[in-house]
């Protein structure tokens, strides 16, 4: 089977934004140290990939990049923890008790609740070009607003933002593209994948590796961070796009995994 390699991208978001670069504030950690990766938890990680496959495409190597801001709330928290009260109402109105539901006659408590929630949708919407939240027939869910929290998960009001943005947890860093030598030479084939996440959009980057291409290759991570600033008395987030180069080293060692520490031919 394919070998899933995880590359955690740990970023001190505030420091990287202040410095205008990632080099001194990024730490990459993968789960292939036992295979020979070097520079774990530094900016100089070289991810080792065993290249020789004992069977076929079935044991292809897959890289997964997972960005994490130092100061993020734990990613193990359930997604609903991050939703604002308005967003929870939106879900309730859109999915649980849709206003078009014939079971909820006009004037009923459920319909009233839905109407209130629809009003709050307007404040939760971020982009003007989003489809109308009224288009329920198409099962459209408007973009959901996240709670404003500090690192203990305590709710922060809008007024507390003034002069104290340091308390806010930053939105998690996003990988927006992967380019560079390893991509140009068709060593890795990166793409963005999604999972059914309601508000973070649940996107992640993954790549398969052409392990015939033995050697060390650079690739460039395109990362967007978000910088807080005051806009009309509220905190808004300005995207800051930065890049960083990392490396993979494809060897002609035989593929191993946790079940087969000594390389050997698997039975067919």
């Amino acid at each position: 089977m394919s070998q899933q390699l995880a590359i955690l991208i740990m970023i001190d978001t505030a420091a990287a934004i202040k410095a205008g670069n990632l080099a001194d504030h990024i730490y990459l950690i993968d789960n292939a140290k036992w295979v020979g990766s070097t520079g774990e938890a530094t900016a100089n990680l070289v991810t080792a990939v065993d290249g020789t496959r004992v069977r076929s495409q079935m044991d292809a190597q897959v890289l997964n990049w997972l960005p994490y801001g130092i100061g993020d709330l734990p990613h193990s928290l359930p997604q609903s923890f991050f939703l604002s009260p308005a967003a929870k109402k939106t879900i309730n109105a859109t999915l649980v008790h849709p206003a078009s539901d014939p079971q909820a006659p006009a004037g009923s408590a459920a319909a009233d609740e839905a109407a209130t929630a629809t009003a709050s949708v307007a404040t939760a919407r971020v982009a003007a070009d989003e489809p109308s939240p009224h288009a329920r027939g198409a099962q459209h869910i408007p973009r959901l607003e996240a709670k404003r929290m500090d690192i203990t998960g305590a709710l922060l009001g809008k007024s507390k933002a003034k002069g104290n943005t340091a308390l806010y947890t930053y939105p998690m860093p996003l990988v927006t593209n992967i380019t560079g030598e390893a991509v140009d030479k068709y060593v890795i084939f990166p793409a963005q994948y999604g999972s059914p996440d309601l508000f973070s959009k649940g996107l992640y980057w993954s790549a398969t590796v052409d392990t015939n291409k033995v050697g060390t290759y650079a690739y460039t991570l395109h990362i967007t961070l978000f910088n807080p600033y005051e806009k009309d008395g509220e905190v808004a987030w300005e995207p800051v796009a930065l890049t960083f180069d990392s490396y993979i080293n494809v060897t002609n060692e035989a593929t191993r995994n946790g079940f087969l520490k000594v390389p050997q031919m698997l039975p067919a």
Partner: protein
Amino acid sequence: MKAISIVAVVDVVGALANDTLTGNLYLLDNNKSNGSTDEGTDVLKTRVKKGDQLVWVVQTLECEAYASIAGIDVDSKFAEYIEPQQKTYQGTNVTYWSATIKKDLDVPVPYNLRFRLASRASDIATSSSPLLLGSAA
């Protein structure tokens, strides 16, 4: 006063396979700009001041693996500076450890971390101590 996060990245599979956290624990904080050192090692030195709020959380290298911090052990002689406590994110079963620096540190304060990993029956502890450092220490 600052909020400082300390993230313990644990290679759960590596720690269980080798029955040690040595080489399988990477500690990172977001205070390098103010003088924290040894980022990415198991002997992180975090620079702190009176009033700073510290939060320790855990992140596993493989998202399928389970890890949580079972304890942060600080010698009782340092209780005048810091007494970490376990807390829970409201409405969830996800825990974190938190402490407020009660007094400026005039000596380094070492601590040890204990983790619960996957279905391992007992906690597993660090064998080397990360430190908290005051501005003068």
